[in-house]
């Protein structure tokens, strides 16, 4: 018999499709044709598979080889089909029993000497395989840790084609020593204790973490904006397993595990440079659609330093994911949806030279430049930012203090408590965070105390705030009330929220 088939998985965004890899070996001149819309990396599989087969002392059939990946209409990309093609080919060449491989999914890229290299997207591929009723999956050893997140499916980690062949021919295999599988708690490298002074910004970070309020930090260079933003994940509650799986799946698709372990429970923080493109921010790509920064920051923090330096379109492309919590990317190969529920933290200098603090004596910018600088952040985007906090330069008093500030662990306890209070309050509603309360509910069920409302209405009359700003202030005041343990926002909470708004309507 010169026909064999096995299975692999093609990924379209986060959606996996189980693909049947068929190999036919026919008489004729030596030829190799690969069918089923392969991209460049996949077309090169021929040379990798051939070298791997020859270097494993197997026989490459000098005949007409046809490899078909079906469904044929689905565009396929990447090197993860190498192993499946190799195994199906050897089976078609009658060196492996076809029954042994028919219902096994193989994932892995081959190196020329037959070692199996890691591939991206293993977790989403396993999810798809399980949905399709597959019982056994062979994954590269390097992806074993990630693969083990998937329960209820037999996962076989292999390092070399020879091991796979031995297993298929004799049933023997070294059981890969189970990698000690444990969710890793939050990492402890960064700590809020490192931040000197900055009580206002610390409070803002705590509120942002508790209520999911987006945050803009304005301050001169060196004041500690970046330091504060980088430490926000350390005060966020640990991810739930379901959330962590979502994060791992997205990072797996983009192949970016370099600085993040697949079993991490820490909220991710992604800080794209301000020269980033729109596609890098929201996701996209011509052949393979990859998730962008806003999806990699899913369930975590998206931190953009020097936000006004961003090309305007880039920041504004975040408006839709901020609203919906997902991002749908339309390309010719189809529409893909990635999750994108993140906490947005922007940092900005107050002016182009960065020295406009206090009365701005050191600033060398013209008043027009100063006014225009922050206006580069568009109105609709700023509308979604609940807090704009000025981070002033650290003074000698704060730097001279030898006692450290409050540690992340202490702050996190308050954040978790505040979130629990909010969740209990929202019991039946569809939202879970204070920042998500719809404005209708703010006017009816979730009004602060009478005096507090009077204060806000006075401000509204004086045109110090807008109606939109009023709602934002109430949302933040709910978070302040949760932290302080008030059952309903008091005048004090509302005044504090008002001051966190920075008194500026950008």
């Amino acid at each position, binding site marked *: 018999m010169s026909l064999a088939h096995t299975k692999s998985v093609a990924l379209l965004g986060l959606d996996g499709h189980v693909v049947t890899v068929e190999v036919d070996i026919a*008489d*004729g*001149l*030596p030829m190799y044709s690969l069918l089923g819309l392969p991209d460049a990396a996949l077309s090169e599989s021929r040379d990798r598979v051939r070298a791997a087969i020859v270097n494993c002392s197997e026989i490459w059939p*000098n005949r007409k080889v046809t490899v078909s990946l079906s469904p044929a209409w689905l565009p396929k990309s990447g090197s993860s089909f190498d192993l499946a093609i190799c195994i199906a080919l050897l089976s078609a060449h009658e060196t492996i029993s076809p029954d042994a491989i028919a219902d096994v999914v193989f994932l892995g890229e081959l190196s020329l000497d037959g070692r199996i290299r890691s591939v991206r997207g293993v977790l989403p591929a396993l999810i798809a395989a399980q949905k399709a009723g597959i019982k056994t999956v062979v994954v590269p050893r390097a992806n074993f840790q990630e693969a083990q997140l998937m329960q209820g499916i037999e996962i076989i980690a292999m390092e070399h084609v020879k091991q796979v062949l031995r297993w298929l021919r004799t049933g023997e295999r070294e059981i890969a020593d189970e990698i000690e599988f444990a969710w890793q708690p939050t990492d402890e490298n960064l700590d809020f204790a490192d931040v000197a002074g900055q009580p206002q910004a610390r409070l803002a970070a705590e509120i942002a973490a508790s209520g999911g309020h987006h945050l803009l930090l304005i301050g001169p260079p060196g004041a500690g904006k970046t330091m504060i933003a980088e430490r926000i994940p350390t005060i966020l509650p640990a991810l739930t397993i379901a959330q962590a799986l979502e994060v791992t799946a997205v990072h797996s698709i983009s192949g970016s595990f370099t600085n993040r372990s697949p079993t991490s429970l820490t909220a991710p923080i992604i800080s794209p440079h301000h020269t980033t493109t729109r596609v890098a921010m929201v996701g996209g790509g011509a052949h393979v659609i990859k998730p962008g920064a806003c999806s990699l920051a899913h369930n975590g923090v998206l931190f953009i330093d020097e936000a006004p330096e961003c090309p305007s379109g880039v920041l504004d492309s975040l408006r839709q994911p901020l609203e919906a919590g997902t991002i749908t990317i339309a390309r010719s190969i189809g529409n893909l949806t990635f999750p994108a529920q993140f906490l947005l933290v922007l940092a900005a200098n107050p002016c182009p030279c960065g020295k406009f603090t206090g009365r701005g004596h050191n600033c060398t910018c013209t008043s027009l430049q100063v006014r225009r600088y922050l206006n580069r952040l568009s109105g609709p985007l700023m509308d979604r930012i609940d807090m704009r906090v000025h981070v002033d330069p650290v003074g000698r008093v704060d730097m001279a203090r030898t006692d450290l500030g409050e540690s992340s662990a202490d702050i996190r306890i308050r954040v978790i408590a505040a979130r629990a209070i909010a969740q209990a309050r929202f019991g039946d509603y569809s939202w879970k965070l204070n920042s998500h309360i719809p404005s209708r509910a703010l006017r009816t069920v979730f009004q602060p105390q009478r005096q507090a409302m009077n204060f806000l209405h006075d401000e509204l009359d004086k045109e110090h705030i807008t109606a939109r700003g009023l709602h934002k202030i109430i949302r933040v005041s709910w978070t302040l009330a949760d932290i302080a343990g008030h059952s309903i926002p008091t005048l004090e909470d509302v005044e504090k929220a008002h001051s966190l708004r920075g008194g500026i309507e950008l």
Partner: protein
Amino acid sequence: MQRKSNQRTGAFGEEEVSKYLVHHNAEIIERNWRIREGEIDIIALYPSGVFAFIEVKTRSSVAFGHPFEAINREKAMRMQRLALGWLATHGCLGCDYQIDVAAVLIAANGSHSIEYRASVL
């Protein structure tokens, strides 16, 4: 010198393939038919009335790959044109024909093996 040796190897291979064809009841019509565009090693007629145009590749080692790998798409298309050229000049245009290839591997001890693939296009 080397070339002469290779030519001898090639001639030996063609001779052996001819014997093989006769043994399989084919009639050898012409050997080494040559025009400006190229050469057909063997032209044979099968008992079924089908003309076969045969390219023979002879190798004394597989160090440079399997003999069949030396026949690429371009070479196969040239054989197709040559075959039509022969049929046209011999008044047989419209007859059934096929392109075959044969590989002759000569082992170090002088024994040889023939691998024959019919109708490769």
